[in-house]
């Protein structure tokens, strides 16, 4: 992400002015992730909706979200349903916070959660506990609020 910003719009920001060409491997990694999604999602696609726990199906139904195939609920994540302020806030606001927060925190689920914890770094443990707690709060309280349920 930082890399793409550095290439497209460095705008003299010190954090974005570094020699990104030396780090271009991470764009190749992102391209690999895209292909991985294509392989996993299209080539090996399951026909059935993924098996979710009954409790989750019930909780999501209460939010107006049906059990369905695919990885994102069409009720929120579809071009047709994007243009309500609640859905925009979820997709655009949520996406913004993912980019902003992970940069600010210096890592995400894999960087802190897997790499950080497996090398026993206590700042990563702090980060994991906080983003997990914050995610729990958001999913259980903010999301229902935004979906008006």
């Amino acid at each position, binding site marked *: 992400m930082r890399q793409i910003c550095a290439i497209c719009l460095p705008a003299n920001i010190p954090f974005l002015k570094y020699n990104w060409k030396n780090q271009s491997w991470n764009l190749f990694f992102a391209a690999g*992730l895209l292909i991985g999604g294509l392989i996993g999602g299209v080539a090996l696609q399951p026909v059935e909706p993924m098996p979710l726990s009954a409790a989750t199906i019930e909780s999501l139904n209460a939010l107006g979200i049906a059990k369905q195939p695919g990885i994102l609920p069409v009720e929120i994540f579809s071009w047709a349903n994007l243009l309500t302020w609640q859905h925009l806030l979820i997709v655009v606001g949520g996406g913004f916070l993912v980019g902003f927060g992970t940069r600010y925190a210096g890592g995400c689920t894999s960087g802190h959660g897997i790499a950080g914890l497996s090398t026993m770094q206590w*700042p990563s443990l702090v980060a994991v506990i*906080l983003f997990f707690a914050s995610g729990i709060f958001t999913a259980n309280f903010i999301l229902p609020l935004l979906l008006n349920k």
Partner: protein
Amino acid sequence: MKKRNLLFFLIGILFGTTLMKADAVSWFRMQEMFRFQGFQMFGIFMTAIPTAALGIFILKKMKIKSLDGEPIHIMKKQFNWGYVYGSILFGVGWGLTGACPGPIYVQIGSGVSIAIVTLLSALAGTWVYSYLKPRLPH
């Protein structure tokens, strides 16, 4: 393509396919995890962390060199308050979109075109952070 780039590309494909098949890029699976209604995501983390620890142990034990031929050195993270503020903000984004940065690419690749909006928003977030960095508490 340079050897390093090719390698990262291949690891990306492997990681992306795995995340997809493990449902780790699924919004539904994240909601299940955040409500403690299923074991799958916890199982993934409980497998991934020891596996990574074992991998790093082997790298160190066998003194495996990096692609540049340098010894591999794992930097100690220095605590700063950015970990706290950033993590709280990221958690909100994660709870809403069900995505961390890596999985957004996988979501797009799997054919969900609207994840492009998530990606552009995340890019905007990264850019704004970079812009505000000198003024934010760390």
